[in-house]
């Protein structure tokens, strides 16, 4: 029996660097973001200025909040495709109700569909165990239909963007977008919830092994219902912020954000299979996507080539990130 002792060789620098990054998954993401910004600056010297940064942040914030919805639902192995519809509904209702109603009443009316859809999603997924993809797809269809019907009753009433929302959405103070006033507390709250509260713990645990949480006394439906209502409320708030930013109520306002919100969460390192991920990565993911969109807008090339490039870069970024973070 040969027993040649095997002493582990000294760890090379490359491996050490990799391990360092693997322990701090945010670092490689931020590096990727910086690389994109540098490319942009090289292609269009001077574009990276205060105004551009403010704009980028303004557009990244709604995406980041919706991606927060995806992050939280994905932690439990779910997904929330109804966020686009919910955001659109609350935006549209706000813009049309503010014309004749007190702002607080308009706000409550605007958040109502969010609560309802969240509740229905939560009950469908948590109690009836419908697959979240289908459940949220169904409710978003229903929501869109309701919005169409609603829209017909208010054609004549016109629409208005409340000044406060416009200030929040488009305003800039000392070079900082006002939207940060909403976003920073919100993001801090999400991060804190995920890391340091019982509810956050349960999201991870439920997504990892639901049976185990049941044996530990967790009631699945409670967690899931609370989750989808929270997600919908966040989407509703995003809608209000977004209408302040875009200032044009339309029946498909936030729909284009749905797929990017999923992509941002995944790029940020959240697993769609549940149990793994976090919100800080998602925020960087949203920034990466926003910068990428700018980059492609600026490039002079046929639209087809632009889309191909977008797809390839998303794939490359995600793959590179996985490579770096993955041990082994």
């Amino acid at each position: 029996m040969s027993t040649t002792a095997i002493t582990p060789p000294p760890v090379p620098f490359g491996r050490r660097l990799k391990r360092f990054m693997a322990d701090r998954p945010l670092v490689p993401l931020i590096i990727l973001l910086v690389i994109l910004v540098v490319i942009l600056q090289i292609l269009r010297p001077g574009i990276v200025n205060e105004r551009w940064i403010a704009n980028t942040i303004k557009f990244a914030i709604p995406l980041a909040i919706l991606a927060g919805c995806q992050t939280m639902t994905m932690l439990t192995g779910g997904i929330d495709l109804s966020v686009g519809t919910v955001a659109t509904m609350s935006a549209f209702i706000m813009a049309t109700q503010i014309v004749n109603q007190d702002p607080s009443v308009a706000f409550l009316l605007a958040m109502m569909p969010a609560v309802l859809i969240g509740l229905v999603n939560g009950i469908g997924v948590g109690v009836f165990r419908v697959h979240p993809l289908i459940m949220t797809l169904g409710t978003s269809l229903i929501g869109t239909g309701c919005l169409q019907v609603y829209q017909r009753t208010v054609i004549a009433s016109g629409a208005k963007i409340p000044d406060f929302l416009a200030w929040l959405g488009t305003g800039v103070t000392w070079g900082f977008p006002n939207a940060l006033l909403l976003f920073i507390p919100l993001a801090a709250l999400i991060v804190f919830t995920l890391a340091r509260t019982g509810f956050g713990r349960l999201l991870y645990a439920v997504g990892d092994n639901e049976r185990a949480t049941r044996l530990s006394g967790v009631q699945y439906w409670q967690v899931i219902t609370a989750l989808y209502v929270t997600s919908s409320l966040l989407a509703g708030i995003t809608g209000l912020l977004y209408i302040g930013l875009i200032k044009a109520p339309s029946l498909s306002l936030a729909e284009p954000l749905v797929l990017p919100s999923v992509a941002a969460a995944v790029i940020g390192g959240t697993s769609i299979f549940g149990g793994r991920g976090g919100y800080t990565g998602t925020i960087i993911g949203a920034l990466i996507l926003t910068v990428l969109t700018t980059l492609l807008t600026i490039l002079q090339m046929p639209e087809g080539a632009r889309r191909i490039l977008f797809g390839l870069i998303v794939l490359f970024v995600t793959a590179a990130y996985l490579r770096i973070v993955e041990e082994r």
Partner: protein
Amino acid sequence: AGKYTIGISNTVQGNGWREEMVCAMKAQALASGEVAKLNIAHRNTDAAGQLEDIRNLISAKVDAIVVNPADPAGIKAGLEEATKAGIVVVAVDQAVTEPSAYIISNNQEEYAYLGAKWLFKQMGGKGEVFYMRGAAGASADSDRDKGFKKALAEFPDVKVAQEVFTGWQQDQAKQQILSFLSTGTPINGIWTSGIDNVIVDALVESQAPLVPIVGADNAGFVGQLSSVKGLVGAAVTNPGSIGGAGVTLALQILDGKKPAQQTVLVQPQLWENATEEGKAKLKAAADPSLSPEWPVSISIPDWTTYTKDQIVACKGPGE
């Protein structure tokens, strides 16, 4: 009271222009007094889906079908079957290749040409233009592109600084213009394919110079043309009420009054705020009570008979 059943097929839902078109169809059907029932297939789909809708309308045995085609050639088979089944077919907004169909349409190529030509003149025949198209791959977009290119060819000193596809989405258009403004590239004019008021907003918000802008006659933009200080621009009409005209044409044919030609083109108009005369036109057209996404030209003389209240109520016969 009426005797006819009319089928309607439309493949874009949730867009202000298309919603107005459908409301115009309903209002005209009601105002004419000749329509008993409307069968409306109105959803987001493609040409194959529209074929399905048209065939369903044939199954429903409607007397006439008014269709806003997803594609001029793609629904030929369905329209042919409808004609064979004795159904009157009218295409609105865009032409179709099926020869038996009647067409009453906005002239998209002319729409773009008219606006672009005015814009290039405003720019003094030279400079850089930001070209904001519609949805890549849509046939209305490629028609408009032809008109734009035609005008461009007439002004050799005008250059396209940047060409982007807004997808006819407000949020994308706004992000695109803001990103572009950040590059600091000087431009002398902006041509938009109907996503216009967010562009004006973006310029105002970022305190960028207000260069001449061409958009469509959407209520929001028309309002801005009168109210935003220093804004020079023009709205080119692209009436959604063309839907009502389609219903009128279908009813005329059903009553035996066939038009001389298969195709009736509604020519676009241009309302600008650079001259006093234009300003007056804009004042007359502006309608702040309308949803900002709705075109203000809610009626077409000789073709529509409903009142504003009727189209805004958006109710068809029997509702």
